Structure formats: C-alpha cells, structure tokens
C-alpha cells in the first residue's frame, strides 16, 4: 500500500491527510473484510450505509442543515473516492454513494420540503436515492428522452421507462428526467418520483461488474406524481442534468485514479514477490517498464485532477478539461488494469483477485457518466476545434 508519507503539495494540507487516515481506517475495518462477500451476494447490507453515515462519510459534501458534513474543498471528495477504490471495488460507489448523482440536483434546485423528504434520510443511511436519465432508446442523447409527464392539474401523469439505473431496485425515490414540453432539451423537466407510487415497477439487470450495486429497468405506467415533486422549473430540466454531470465526472475521475493506483500497487507487490527464470518479475525490464508506464500515466491524471479540482473550488466550471480528464482517467484505468492483469498472469483471471474485479469494471467507467466518444465531442465543441 502506498502511504503518501509527509506529502508536500499545494493542495493537500494536514487536515486532508488526517481525513485520509480516517477514511483508510474505515475502509480497513468496515469494507475490506466484507467487500468480496458483498460483491458475490450482489448486495451491501444497510448496516454499512449506517456505518458510513456514523463515520461522516456518507454525507460528505452536503449542507449541515440537511444532515450533511460540509467539505471545505473538493479534495476531501477526491480522497474519499481514492481510498474507497483501494478495495478494488468500483461497485461500492454506485451501491452506497449513488445519491452522489441523485441528490445534488435536489440540494441545488429543490425546495426545502423536497430536501427534507428526499435528501436527509438518504444522508442518514436510512434510504437510497437514484438518478434516472437513461432510457432503453438511448443514454448519450439526453435531450431525446421519451418518458412523458403530462400536466393533469394537481399532478403529472408519467409514462415511459428508464434503464441501467444504479440503485434502482433499492432506491425509495428517483430523480427522473421526463418530457413535459416539446422535442429537444427545452422540453425536459426533472421530477422526483417515489418508488412506491402505483404504476411504478422495476426489474433487476445482471451485469459484467459492479455486482454489489443493483442496476434496474424502471417502468412508469400512468404514475400520478404530485406537482410539488417538480425539481426547479418546468422545461428547465436539461440545465439541472448538465450541472449534475460536472460533479459526477470529478468523482468518477477520482475513482478511476484510485482504481488504477490499486492496480499499480497490486501489480508492483506481485512483481516483487513472484519469481520467474531465477529472478523476481520486476527484475525483468519488460515488467518493470510496464509498472513505470502505468505510474507515469496515472500520476499525470492525478496532477490534472488536482488542478481541475482547485479551479472548480475557485469558481471555474472547466467543462472541456473535465470532459477530457474523464476520458483520460478512465482510459488510463483500462490501461493499468490491462497491464496489471498481464503482470499477474493466470492468477489475475481468478475471482477474489482485486485486479480481476477492476478489469471487469473498467468498461462501465468509460461508458457511464458520459461515454468517451460523447465527451471528446463535447470537449471539441468547447474548445472550438
């Protein structure tokens, strides 16, 4: 394990390091001993949500008035993502911290009543919230969503379906993108839909990785949603979604960096211990250069990640940089997972190995939260290329 001793950095202070120690300790005690079992079982017990809330980690970055623990800057969130990733589980984030994409829109645009009802119990570890944007007909083209919410006086009548929704099976409410107006982005609104409303049904999906996190298809069949559940203004939902993507992407970059770091640490330790042809693997130039190639790339990701975080904390919204970093960080993760697999040889192919799981969980990182193709195009537009 890399312990980051006495780091000198323009961004990280003693407070950050003290916080990192605590997260590390939480991970070692509460998560590392259980994650393999939870991943195989396809579920994280509610007691872990509670433990994360007791440690002040579930609610990191939310206002105190809603039961949150306010973070003075973005680096605390980076540390949390990075350290949770050291268990080699990408799935723990969507399994437990999925409110990280479902709740910020309610915090930023919701009424006090909405916040009290839909955010506070989630931050206490009692309930889960999910974000429902993607539909069976497509996820990249968010402005083309087909689920409709028809104005029916005191309520909306919602029809349609959503798919690939993280936490969709366990969530008690969904922050949902719906069409209230005409075609295109100008007809999109955000509605908070309670999972127990008549007409809501859901089915689980089996998937390649992220086993400890459920993923669902949601069906809305003439669901009556009270008007008071509209988030922000009608037909202004597209801006809410875009606002949300930026914070999601920063977290995903930090997670990708952390998972890649885990691959490097695992592979480096194995390369020191494993002997072939009379010497440790790391004694072969080909292998130690692989480790350097991994480290080189991931350290570059980290430098850019920290710089972008600093700029965000100073009021900027560096959309192009964030988009490009999301691509770079997740592709670096793919590279590192691939090389770590190669260094481990056959042992990497066996379940129970962190690298095996990370390798299976790289693709969701390059596709979810904005695919590489879409983000490069977004960056190109921003940069005027």
């Amino acid at each position: 394990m890399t312990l980051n001793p006495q780091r000198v950095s323009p961004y990280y202070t003693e407070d950050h390091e003290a916080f990192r120690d605590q997260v590390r300790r939480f991970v070692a005690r509460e998560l590392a001993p259980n994650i393999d079992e939870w991943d195989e079982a396809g579920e994280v017990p509610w007691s872990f949500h509670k433990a994360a809330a007791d440690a002040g980690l579930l609610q990191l970055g939310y206002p105190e008035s809603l039961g949150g623990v306010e973070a003075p800057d973005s680096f605390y969130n980076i540390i949390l993502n990075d350290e949770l990733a050291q268990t080699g589980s990408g799935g723990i984030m969507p399994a437990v911290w999925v409110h990280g994409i479902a709740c910020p829109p309610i915090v930023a645009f919701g009424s006090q009543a909405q916040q009290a009802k839909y955010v506070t119990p989630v931050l206490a570890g009692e309930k889960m919230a999910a974000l429902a944007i993607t539909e069976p007909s497509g996820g990249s083209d968010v402005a083309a969503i087909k689920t409709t919410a028809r104005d029916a006086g005191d309520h909306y009548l919602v029809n349609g379906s959503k798919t690939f929704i993280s936490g969709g099976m366990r969530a008690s409410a969904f922050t949902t993108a719906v069409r209230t107006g005409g075609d295109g982005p100008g007809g999109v609104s955000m509605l908070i839909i309670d999972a127990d409303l008549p007409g809501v049904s859901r089915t689980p999906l089996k998937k390649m990785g992220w086993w400890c996190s459920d993923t669902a298809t949601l069906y809305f069949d003439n669901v009556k949603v009270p008007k008071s559940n509209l988030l922000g203004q009608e037909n202004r939902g597209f801006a809410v979604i875009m606002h949300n993507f930026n914070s999601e992407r920063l977290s995903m970059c930090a997670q990708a960096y952390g998972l890649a770091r885990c691959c490097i640490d695992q592979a480096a330790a194995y390369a020191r211990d494993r002997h072939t042809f009379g010497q440790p693997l790391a004694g072969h130039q080909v292998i130690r250069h692989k480790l350097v190639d991994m480290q080189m790339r991931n350290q570059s990701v980290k430098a850019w990640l920290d710089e972008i975080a600093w700029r965000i904390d100073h009021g900027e919204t560096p959309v192009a940089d964030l988009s490009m970093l999301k691509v770079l960080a997740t592709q670096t993760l793919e590279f590192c997972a691939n090389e770590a697999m190669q260094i481990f040889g056959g042992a990497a192919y066996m379940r129970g190995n962190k690298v095996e799981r990370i390798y299976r969980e790289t693709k969701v990182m390059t596709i979810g939260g904005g695919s590489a193709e879409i983000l490069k195009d977004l960056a190109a537009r921003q940069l005027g290329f």
Partner: protein
Amino acid sequence: MKVMVSVKRVVDYNVRIQVKGDGSGVNLDGVKMSMNPFDEIAMEQAVQMKDAGTAEEVIAVTIGPAKAEEQLRSALAFGADRAIHVKTDEEIQPLTAARILAKLFEKEQPKVLLTGKQAIDDDANQTGQMTAALLDLPQATFASAIEFDGDKAKVTREVDSGLETIEVDLPAVITTDLRLNEPRYLKLPDIMKAKKKPIDAMSVEDLGIEEAVKLNVTKTAPPPEREPGVMVEDVNELVSKMKDKGLV
C-alpha cells in the same frame, strides 16, 4: 472528573519497518507516523467517559518533536478539550517519559491518567507502571474493561492466565489493552474543530526534569527470516519430522 491521556507519535502500524544498513536503528525517513494504537484506545476511553458525563475535562499530553503536534490534533479531534506538548527532539526513554508525565500529573491533578499499555515502536511496556510508581499511586495495567464508581475504579485486566478484576482507589494510572474498545472514526468537522483547541507547549527543561540515565542501543537487527514450512500428510509424518529435528 479530570482525565489525562498520554499519546505518542510512532511509526504507523501499516508501515513495514526497515532496519538501517549499519544496524544503528530503523529507517524513519519519510515514513508515515501516527498515534500509537494503544493510545487511541486510551483516548477513546476518555472521550467515552466525557460522553457519559463521568469526565468533565480530558487533557491530552505528548512528549516528542514539533511534528508530534499532529498526534495532539488527532487527540483533540477525538474530543480532548486541550493538550500539552512537551517538545523535544531527543529520544525519550520510559523513565524520562514517566518523570515528565508524573510532573504534569502533579500540575494538573487529574483523577486518572490513561495511557496505552505500550507503544508499538519499542514495545517497552514500562511508562505507565513507572509513572504510577513515581507518583506513589495505584496502577491497573492492560485494562480490557473499566468501571468508575465514586472514588474507585473496577478494572478488568488481561493477564497471562485470563482475566483478572481489581479495584483501585483514585487517582490512579490505568493502561489500556486492545480489547477495551474500538476507537471511533474522527469526523471531518471534528478534525477541523481540533485546529482551534489550545495546545500548551513547553520544553523538558521548563518542567525541571532531569533526563534519566540513557539506555544505549548497541545494535538493531531485523528478526531472522523464517524458514518456509513443510506440509505433512498425517500425524505419523508430523511426529517423525519432529523426531528428526529432536523436538520430541
């Protein structure tokens, strides 16, 4: 009551210790340092007493270099009200530490001094006992359970033969063992608040302490590498192997 807790800055328990090439000690360059885990247990005990209303004030004490302030900040984040930092760059051995703690005890007059049963650097397991002796106070070492009742404390001790429960009159020195509690996670707001709590800094000389006779370490060596084990098929093979080695 007033509770004093002593905490020590030691190499983090996750670090793989490396002995210096010349055998003059262990490598501390750039190595991660943390609060001695047994002292964290002592801190947890103290703040639990505060939460329960048994303790009104918790004072954390450390003896060590300027950087040991980090460990005092952790103690303050745990919930100590204030801290005392006896600054020194010298290596402090148990008797000197005990003299310093005894002096601070006399100054502060707490009802109890809590400290880890040993520090994981030298594993001396002496400071608590020596402090009690210097102060001529009762001591209860290796505590795995503590119950306060008026001017007495009932302490369950982990001893070789199992558990032993004793009663001591207060004030007393109690050293904490692993099973006493599970130290809490320090939350970010508490880490931030700890920055604002007072730390009273002083030198060993300020306290008028004479350093005890130094024990000289002549050589540090890593433990011999363990030979790999062998798998045996059955008890017969085990017995014959042991006979070969002259073990039975």
